[in-house]
């Protein structure tokens, strides 16, 4: 649904986005993840037709963004990082203005506005001036604006930025509820957001693509080591050295009463470890697989040039 090929954007000498490639399938939610100034907003602005790219191609629903900007603009909904609101308008008149410039036929406008208001939970503030409503509601007006014309593709730039935890959860719920009908690309620098809402992720840093793929694919490919975390009744240094002596174990570390045991991917050391625990009567309380989560992945990507 969204396809980016060798996308490059330069502002003078500054390269904001460099040879970016990624693909988002229909009906999926993808996260565009990266630290600040990574090029997330620039990428989204190019996709929505706000900025032209210096080089490369971008397609939304098979329309070339540069050759058919108007076709793309009709099927894309965009929530910029700074929500574009007119403070002097009421929520309703704002949505009605947006519905006009998004070419919704006059006969269907009312219906579309009703639907957007209902989906984004704006009923309580509908008659109020935008300048008088809270940050959370403003964000929702932004989302309502983005999805008022039933776009096939939604591009959301940091949809939860600046909201309180309860509001963040609500916005996430709203985004998740759109899944299936719409293809969504959202940017964020919050890791939890990706794990909780997204199917896949594109990680960029300083304009370079660091990694992209579905969450499972990525975590699997980055996991060079496997391991377990065990909790024992007995602890101490002698237990540590016992564990280290197991043939095939690369690394054992311990924190509090838990031991983290790692080995190279492919082997399975769980039998040996269990055997040792039973033989030495160490008293197993808990054993769980060591999961490489998105946070590890992200930090790894950002800190150390894991290029794919």
């Amino acid at each position: 649904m969204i396809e980016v090929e060798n996308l490059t954007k330069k502002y003078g000498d500054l390269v904001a986005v460099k040879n970016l490639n990624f693909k988002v399938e229909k009906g999926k939610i993808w996260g565009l993840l990266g630290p600040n100034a990574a090029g997330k907003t620039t990428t989204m602005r190019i996709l929505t037709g706000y900025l032209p790219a210096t080089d490369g191609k971008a397609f939304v629903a098979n329309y070339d963004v540069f050759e058919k900007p108007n076709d793309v603009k009709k099927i894309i909904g965009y929530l910029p990082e700074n929500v574009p609101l007119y403070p002097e308008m009421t929520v309703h008149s704002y949505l009605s203005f947006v519905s006009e410039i998004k070419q919704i036929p006059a006969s269907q406008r009312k219906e579309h506005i009703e639907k957007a208001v209902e989906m984004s939970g704006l009923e309580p503030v509908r008659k109020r001036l935008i300048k008088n409503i809270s940050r959370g509601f403003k964000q929702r007006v932004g989302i309502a604006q983005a999805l008022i014309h039933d776009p096939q593709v939604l591009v959301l730039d940091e949809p939860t930025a600046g909201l309180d935890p309860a509001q963040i959860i609500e916005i996430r719920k709203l985004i998740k509820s759109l899944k299936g009908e719409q293809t969504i690309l959202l940017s964020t620098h919050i890791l939890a957001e990706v794990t909780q809402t997204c199917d896949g992720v594109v990680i960029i840093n300083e304009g370079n693509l660091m990694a992209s793929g579905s969450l499972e694919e990525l975590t699997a490919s980055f996991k060079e080591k496997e391991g377990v975390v065990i909790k024992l009744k007995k602890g101490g240094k002698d237990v540590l050295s016992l564990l280290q002596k197991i043939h095939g174990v690369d690394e054992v570390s311990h924190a509090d009463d838990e031991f983290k045991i790692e080995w190279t991917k492919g082997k399975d050391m769980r039998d040996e470890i269990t055997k040792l625990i039973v033989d030495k009567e160490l008293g197993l309380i808990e054993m769980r697989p060591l999961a490489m989560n998105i946070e590890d992945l992200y930090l790894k990507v950002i800190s150390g040039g894991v290029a794919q």
Partner: protein
Amino acid sequence: MKNIWAIFKKEIKTYFTSPIAYVVITVFLVLIGFFFYSLIWWFNSQSLQMAQNPYSYQQLNINQMVYSPLFQNMSIILLLMIPLLTMRLFSEEKKSNTDELLYTCPISINQIILGKYFASLFVLLAMLFLTGILSIFTFAYGNPELVPILNGYLGLFLQGAAFIAVGIFFSSLTENQIVAAVLTFGTLLLFWILSWASYSAGGIWKGVLNYLSFIQHFDDMTRGILDTTDLVYYLSFIFLGLFLTHSVIQSRRWR
């Protein structure tokens, strides 16, 4: 056309839900009212003086003695007021990031510019229309000629329309409204006084400066002359202003 209408409606709403339009129109009307009052008062005293002399009494002409100077005054006040009407048109969109909404909607830059332009023209028309109330008195108690008055209003409208085109252009250049207003005002004033330089200029420059200046063209119109040169002058001014605005917006996005 529908898109232009949508932008037009939005701008009109912004003009009339914020105090801008009311303040500008009110101040304009108060000043014009004052000028009108003093001109009428002066005309009145002249009439009383000349009542003894039947010949010069015949020469008294309300169109020349009241309307001509009134139109001159109105155009100077427009020069002061129009930068305030146009300063926010594009700069505010940029400042509040709403340009990102406009430029990612299926609507062209030209439609946005025209929508905004027509909205300002509408406010200008409202200002001029409301000054028409003054003419109720002159027509009730005197016998001015209608055609030169209408011609003067047409001149004011064209001049104001040219001013607005300049204002829109400067508004697209900056996100600071004050900067936009000051640049507009400075430019308009410069074009106004350009003909002064023609006194000292020689040869072809004299004609060029005179042609470029607002004064010459506007004088014609207040005196009841409708010349195609003047029409062409104003229309090309408007076209150039809007064209440059389009170029600025287009180039910003490509930078």
